[in-house]
């Protein structure tokens, strides 16, 4: 499983006016892997996502994706380069339907131009709509495509968020606690869906608290605590890593 890394963080730090949220973090996410980012609450995992996607600028360090330096780019630029994400608390567009969420994701993908008032190319439009249908069917959202997304059940809303991210045709998908709030059945379903997405060749980096999901899904895991990487390795290695156990359960006095 070698080849060029999809995402490389080197010495990344983020200082919020005195609070060091991320401390000298370096990691490599390889192409077509599913990688997990775990750690106790407040370890800085979401901050790392925010740094990668350009929501906050890094205080120090650099972020590269396939040799392109993302460190100083604006969020919309980074997204157009092929990184898409979901959020810890679901953030859907409260006035749009499911279908429209996928459409809006499509509008500005790589290789897509920014005109769009008059759909001059019927073929292109038809292709886009076919793609949208594929995404909706893949996630089991076809039946609810015309429903206003904000009134859908929680589990389905999570899927809509993922659908919106997929519409961007990303090369790297960043998922922030996608199973939060889901019951066992929904979690299993999500696991299957994520595997299907992975089969499409998309690299996935996932923040999770549900250990079962991480262990079953990931090829490689990074463990964070207090903004620093304290361990990394395969699920088997992480499971028995003493520092990781200590971080989660606390030290035995």
């Amino acid at each position, binding site marked *: 499983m070698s080849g060029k890394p999809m995402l490389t963080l080197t010495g990344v730090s983020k200082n919020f006016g005195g609070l060091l949220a991320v401390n000298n973090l370096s990691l490599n996410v390889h192409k077509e892997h599913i990688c997990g980012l775990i750690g106790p609450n407040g370890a800085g995992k*979401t901050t790392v996502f*925010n740094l990668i996607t350009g*929501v906050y600028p890094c205080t120090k360090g650099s972020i590269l994706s396939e040799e392109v330096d993302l460190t100083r780019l604006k969020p919309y630029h980074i997204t157009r380069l092929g990184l898409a994400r979901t*959020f*810890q608390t679901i953030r859907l567009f409260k006035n749009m339907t499911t279908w429209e969420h996928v459409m809006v994701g499509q509008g500005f993908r790589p290789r897509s131009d920014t005109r769009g008032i008059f759909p001059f190319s019927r073929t292109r439009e038809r292709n886009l709509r076919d793609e949208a249908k594929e995404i909706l069917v893949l996630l089991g959202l076809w039946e609810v495509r015309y429903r206003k997304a904000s009134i859908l059940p929680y589990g389905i809303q999570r899927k809509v968020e993922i659908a919106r991210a997929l519409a961007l045709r990303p090369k790297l998908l960043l998922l922030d606690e996608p199973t939060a709030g889901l019951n066992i059945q929904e979690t299993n379903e999500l696991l299957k869906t994520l595997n299907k997405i992975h089969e499409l060749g998309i690299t996935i980096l996932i923040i999770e608290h549900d250990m079962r999901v991480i262990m079953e899904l990931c090829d490689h895991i990074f463990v964070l605590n207090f903004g620093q990487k304290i361990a990394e390795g395969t699920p088997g290695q992480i499971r028995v890593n003493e520092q990781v156990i200590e971080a989660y359960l606390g030290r035995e006095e």
Partner: protein
Amino acid sequence: MFLQQLFNGVMLGSTYALIAISFTLLMGVLNMLNFAIGEVFMLGAIFGLTFVKLGLSLYLAFFLAIICTGCACLVIERFSFRPLRHAPPLVPLLSTIGFSILFQNTAENLWGSERSQFPQWMEPIDFHVGPLLIPSTQLIIFAAAVFLMVGLDLFIQRTRIGRGMRAVAENIETASILGVDSNLIISTTFLVSGALAGASGILFGLSFSIVSPFMGMEPGIKGIAAMIVGGMGNIRGAIVGGLMIGIIEVLSVGYLGAPAKDFAVYGALFLALVIRPQGILGMIHPERERI
């Protein structure tokens, strides 16, 4: 000359400060911008004048008027705040715009649209302190404004209700859990806000000898500007902001002529918004997004 202008600016600014406090009370405690405060200001002067014309002494008229304006604000609470707790944030603002229109139109119809003024209420004596000319009327008005501001500050810091207001300003749910009667606090905030605005209106009317249904528009906007410049939700900020706007207004008219007045005031507002939106004394960073 400069000193005199500065002094005049402080006098004017003290009434703006009172209005700014009215705005900032509601903004700080309830996160609501009550656009109708400008008209409540006007109602204060109108009610005050009416009571005086009915034969009451100025002091009695003053107190009655601010009770009336306090009640007017309670009406606003009933229709613009309570039913709209969960509406999108712009909606209460627009509802208060509706009240603004209602109050102004009603005042115009019931009191006529000409300007009038308060009858002379005391023998004016002019004090000369150094190069300054201080009319005794101005001094008393300023003293009244200061008295109100100090009184409010004490009220917020020392009384139970005042502490409740600060608690609700922090977090309304937590405050309820801690036993604060949030409905009482809300009503009190509106009442005090209305009373202060009305008081400001009467003092303004006495100071500048105008009472008209249209007198509230500009001071209302300047009050909001003062609130923003000084720092929203912050009473001391409102005072600082009010004084600044007053001084800027007087100085710009004095040195640059009447046309410069609005440029100076709105220019200051612009600068404040662009450079330091949280205001001079404000400490909240505007709209830090949590992802």
